[in-house]
């Protein structure tokens, strides 16, 4: 009888530890998913601003149609990439695609803004000033939310890989590391090409 009790107590303690691991994994996953929701709100805000930007710019620089179209296309790409990523935050493939699409969009918008420097009327327009400020501020918010998301993902991955969680993680459906969201910033880093020909 006594051995049975001792066994039972040991089993209970073990079960509790395992349930604890399960719960912690779920909590950490929820945290990074909430983090992604935060990014999503800001990115959507940005995608709503961009058509306004294009609309405003259009009147001044009609002959830059290619640039404008590139921006709109990049925006649509990124928007669908976001919808895709939001259904499964942390999925490596979706994060990579979103990151790349965001990089392209960032580059296209950067080029557009650089081009607009050449149009003093446009630069002076209040609408444009307001839009630029909002875009910059949204940009900052996105990067801040992204940092929080990446921190949450790192916390999840670290816990998932540590002992004893690593033994059970696969069993509980946490077999893969969540993926960080990195924006491919090459396009932004490149100086915009302005030709004077």
């Amino acid at each position, binding site marked *: 009888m006594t051995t049975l009790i001792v066994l039972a107590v040991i089993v*209970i303690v073990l079960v509790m530890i395992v349930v604890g691991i399960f719960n912690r994994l779920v909590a950490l996953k929820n945290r990074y998913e909430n983090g992604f929701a935060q990014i999503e709100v800001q990115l*959507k805000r940005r995608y709503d601003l961009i058509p306004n930007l294009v609309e405003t710019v259009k009147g001044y620089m009609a002959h830059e149609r290619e640039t404008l179209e590139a921006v709109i296309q990049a925006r649509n790409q990124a928007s669908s990439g976001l919808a895709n990523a939001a259904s499964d935050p942390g999925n490596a493939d979706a994060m990579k695609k979103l990151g790349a699409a965001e990089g392209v969009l960032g580059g296209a918008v950067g080029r557009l803004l650089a081009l607009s420097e050449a149009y003093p009327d446009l630069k002076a327009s209040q609408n444009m000033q307001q839009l630029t400020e909002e875009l910059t*501020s949204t940009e*900052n918010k996105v*990067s801040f939310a992204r940092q929080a998301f990446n921190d949450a993902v790192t916390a999840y991955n670290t816990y998932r890989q540590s002992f004893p969680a690593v033994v059970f993680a696969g069993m509980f459906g946490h077999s893969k590391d969540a993926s960080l969201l990195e924006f491919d910033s090459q396009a932004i880093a490149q100086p915009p090409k302005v030709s004077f020909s």
Partner: protein
Amino acid sequence: MSTHFFENQEAARRQTSRLVFLFGCAVVGIVALLYGLAIVITNLPKTDAYGRVLAIPIEYWQPELLFQVVLATLAVVAGGSLYKTLQLRGGGAIVAESLGGQLIPSDTRDPEARKILNVVEEMAIASGLPTPPVYLLADENGINAFAAGFTPSDAVIGITRGSVHLLTRDELQGVIAHEFSHILSGDMRLNIRLMGTVHGILLIGMIGYFLLRSSMFSGGRRDSRDRSGSVMVMAGFGLMVIGFVGTFFGNLIKASVSRQREFLADASSVQFTRNPAGIAGALKKIGGLDAGSILTSPSAPEASHLFFSNGLRGGLQSLFATHPPLADRIRRLDPSFAGVASASPGVARIQATGAAGFAGSRTPTPLASLPAAPTGSAIQQVGEPTAAHLEYATRLLADLPSAVVAACHEPHGARAVLYALLINRDGDARRRQLDQLATFDEAGLADETRRLLRDIERLDSCVRLPLIDIALPALRNLSRSQYLAFETNVRVLVEADDRIDLFEWTLQRILFAHLRPHFERTASRARHNVHLSKLATECGVVLSVLARFGSAGDAAVRTAFDHGAAQLPGLSLALLPKERAGLPALDEALSRLARADTRVALQLLPACAAAITADGIVSVAQGEMLRAISDTLGAPMPPLLPGQKLF
């Protein structure tokens, strides 16, 4: 002062002790049953080597066996309860997520989600609580809501998609006010305890199930272990039955405790909103809706008592219902209610006759006919916001510049708002603070703060605390490392001018009191019953600080202190010298006072108010300070209305 708030808290405590008693009874009963089971198992007829049954007289009294049974039961039940309680200490978010809730981002642009967040925000400002994060139960089409948490700092509100879709703004307000009443009256902690204890009993049945399963799988294969196999089956089955009976009584306890608290919350909801039609309309819609208030989440049974209305279908209605019958609740709010729910799409389902037998036993007080709450002093309204506060909160939110509100709703901007609040209006200190700000290494932060500074400096000083309340949910979305940086930065800005003023102190106090539990994984501490006489030193510090900051000149300070001390006749208090009555000393005293339960607040708050009002002048900073002290003592104070007396 005597207010419902403290009476409600007291009632919640009494319920807790009643719960402990009932729970004790349940455990004794379980031990007795288990002992019986153990006697049966140990006295199973034995066969000798030739297969003949040996008749051994049954020994009913086996102290050693009883001892083992008691030990094992206690270990399991206590372990199970403790485990669940510890898990739930993580706060309401854990409960909300286990029910399938998704956090609504505080800067959401979905109009329906925005509406519910606004309603919650108004209610939070009106009651002086930090805005709780709101979780949407997206898969639930019934009308229901809940509040969960251990303390107001970790409370969350959950609401079903059905409610958001189907309820009008007034009805939502009624429901949310009902949930805030649960937060304010200490019901949440009681509810969490209920979940924990019932879980402990549930565990016994689960072990039985586990034993039964495992013996089913291993049994029948090996003949030599046939006997031990059948013992296992028996033990497993017995445990399951006992566990079931235990859970049965556990649910009974849960339901009976919960039912009584619901009427109270309904009544408070009307008091907060002065609009019985709101909450009554929501209840009527539940009655008229096919999905009613039913929840589909598999975790719903465990949390059934947290909800706004019955979340489970059918069963022994009156005995197990965690909520009073719908018709009864409606009739208390709207005496003219004839029993046919009408207000919403769907079929009327409440039958007046069905509930009449129960309702006939006592005459319900029609809340609609209660007089409007008189405007009392700030201290009388602790934990009891009135419709005037709600109106004040609504107007305050509407008057705030939209850029500031938008910033408060998102983590990046929320920090900038708090930094901007800390920046001095003029002079050397301001320049130093702005310089400091530029050194914080986050992109665009200094710009954002400067941009908001223009708006924030134009704001009336009495909206500064509500701004913190609004910003809190967004700040919880910081990652841990972002939070640590934020904490340091706030400190740097506060100390930039080498002195801490009252407002800076109040801001830090309120901000970190609510954020720290979330980020530092320190379980929220339960408050204990400590007699005020043991806290005389702390009370002395609090009154001394209030007197010294509120009055100039030794005589005035002395008068203020004496006014306060007169409210605490049982204690011998001494005015502390200036160097021992600074804000750091106050911080230390308050962190000790924070461990005592709200009875201390009941006595100490009038003393504080007396000390502040002794000179007949109450500055905004003093009012804010009193609210911060009140908040620390677990007694949330609604915002001070213009021209309102403190005490």
